[in-house]
């Protein structure tokens, strides 16, 4: 069983509003999945369903079991950071270590202490004495010291400055990722995690609009900086996105054979951010 998460017809409704509408996807073991969508697209609903934090309809398997069986069972093998700054302000760093050591079998105190030793955080400090960036460091050190099969990060760097954001993802990749654990990261700041990901899931208005391994992007998508005289011809090939900058038109094509595109101009793989805009505008149309 190499699928960590399997969703089949996952639906989440709030009254008439469908936050998730018949969503299907799978997450393979060892992958780093970017769950990317604008605010209100259904990212958090998806993650909360996976974590057993909310009710839903349809089928969902997380590590072989239904998360509806109980959040606390899920949490033995899944960890999550839902936004930064949610550590209780009264908690002392040493108490946080004691607590997690006491309730989580997979926690390595040595690992957490080693990570904290590289920061300016002292065990005697309370969370309220730490800066927002330091709280994130602490939270990350705590969570990354728990060995689990799946790590879920919901907008983990929201509100942090660029230095901490970068350090966060560096640490995630270097100290943590071992190809055994799978990671799901939801964000709407695409650029930052682009290089990290092995798989992309775009979500918009409760629907998955793109589900592709990063390695396959080059096969399916192509961005062409179209020579001005060939614009009409390029339009005829149904680009999914057209962007104009400095008088040049750049178009993104999906599943169009390279032999048709090569004569039109310079080809390259679109950035995730451009692809995101392309797919979402298309979905909105």
């Amino acid at each position, binding site marked *: 069983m190499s699928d960590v998460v399997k969703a089949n017809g996952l639906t989440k409704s709030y009254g008439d509003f469908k936050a998730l509408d018949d969503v299907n996807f799978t997450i393979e073991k060892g992958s780093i999945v970017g769950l990317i969508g604008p605010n209100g697209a259904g990212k958090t609903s998806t993650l909360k369903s996976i*974590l057993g*934090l*909310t009710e839903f309809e349809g089928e969902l398997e997380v590590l072989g079991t239904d998360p509806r069986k*109980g*959040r*606390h*069972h899920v*949490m*033995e093998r899944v*960890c*999550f*950071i*839902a*936004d930064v*700054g*949610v*550590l*209780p*302000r*009264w*908690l*002392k760093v040493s*108490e946080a270590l*004691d*607590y*997690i*050591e*006491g*309730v*989580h079998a997979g926690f390595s105190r040595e690992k957490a202490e080693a990570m904290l030793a590289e920061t300016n955080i002292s065990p005697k400090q309370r969370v309220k004495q730490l800066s927002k960036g330091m709280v994130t460091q602490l*939270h990350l050190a705590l*969570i990354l010291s728990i060995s689990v099969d799946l790590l879920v990060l919901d907008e983990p760097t929201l509100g942090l400055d660029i230095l901490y954001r970068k350090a966060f993802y560096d640490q995630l990749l270097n100290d943590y990722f071992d190809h055994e654990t799978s990671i799901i990261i939801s964000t709407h700041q695409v650029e930052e995690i682009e290089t990290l990901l092995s798989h992309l899931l775009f979500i918009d208005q409760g629907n998955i609009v793109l589900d592709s391994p990063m390695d396959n992007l080059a096969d399916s998508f192509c961005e062409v900086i179209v020579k001005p005289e060939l614009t009409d011809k390029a339009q005829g090939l149904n680009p999914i996105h057209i962007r104009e900058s400095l008088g040049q038109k750049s178009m993104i094509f999906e599943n169009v054979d390279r032999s048709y595109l090569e004569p039109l101009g310079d080809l390259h793989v679109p950035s995730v951010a451009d692809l995101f805009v392309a797919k979402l505008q298309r979905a909105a149309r």
Partner: protein
Amino acid sequence: MNKFTILLRREIWENKSSFIYLPIVVASLCAFFVISGIGALQIGGDFVNIDADINYKSNQITETYNVDDTFDSLVGRGLQDFSRQPEIAKRNALNGVYLAISDPLILTLRLVIIFYLVMSLYQDRKDRSILFWKSMPVSDFTTVLSKVITALIIVPAIYLACCMALHLVLLLVSTLSALGYDVPIWSTLWAPAGIITRWFEMASYLLIVGLWCLPFYAWVLVVSSRAKSVPLAWIIGLPLVLILLEAIFGTTGHVKDFISDHIAPLFMAKDLERGIGPIFDRIMNVELLISIAIGFAFIAGAVFFRSKADEL
């Protein structure tokens, strides 16, 4: 079990000031008044005009009785009179004294427990730390249970320990004051005080009253786990509405009686002065079982709301 212990410790960490520091402060204040009171008596009677603190510091207790022979002989005579009282009279008198100096602690305890329960499932939703707690493999039932056990056993135990320390101080100070007078210390001050028995009585009293008032405690938990704002308003408001509805449409007073019966004992520590027996007679019956059952039903409700709970 170890997992549950850490949950209880978590509750103490979060509420250290009201669980640990506050009872120590209250007990110290009580002890201060007791000591300065006895000290003032010792130093010569006119204690109204004497600064109590100076008395205490200057109080070389066994020597001070020479200050005022007249008054001193008065204290001595009083003690001797008291020592000749019948056993039961001595017991009742000291019982009253020992319980009275615990009253401030017991009252503080009740208020602390109620405010603790009000915030226990509300505060972390408000400050969003619920997202952290829920990321741990701790079931919602265990979480709620840890709050119940904290309120029923842990906090009362801490406050009881402070009462015990206070009793020991009182025993010690009264013993020191009586030294030098010709009174049998054991049969005058120690045996009638029966503080060990008193402690057992208080411990069972705290536990039984806790169980008796479980419907109220658990109701507070339900509100704490569900309210979107001002939990106190719900806690007080809804029972009031029920009582009002009953008064308007009902002919009996069952709701009102039940509600007041299960809240009032929390604020009547004086009950204890009549001895533990009457309280048990009143409470230890099928009604207690009903209270516990209703308490459990509310606790189940709190667990249910907790499982749905999200940041506010």
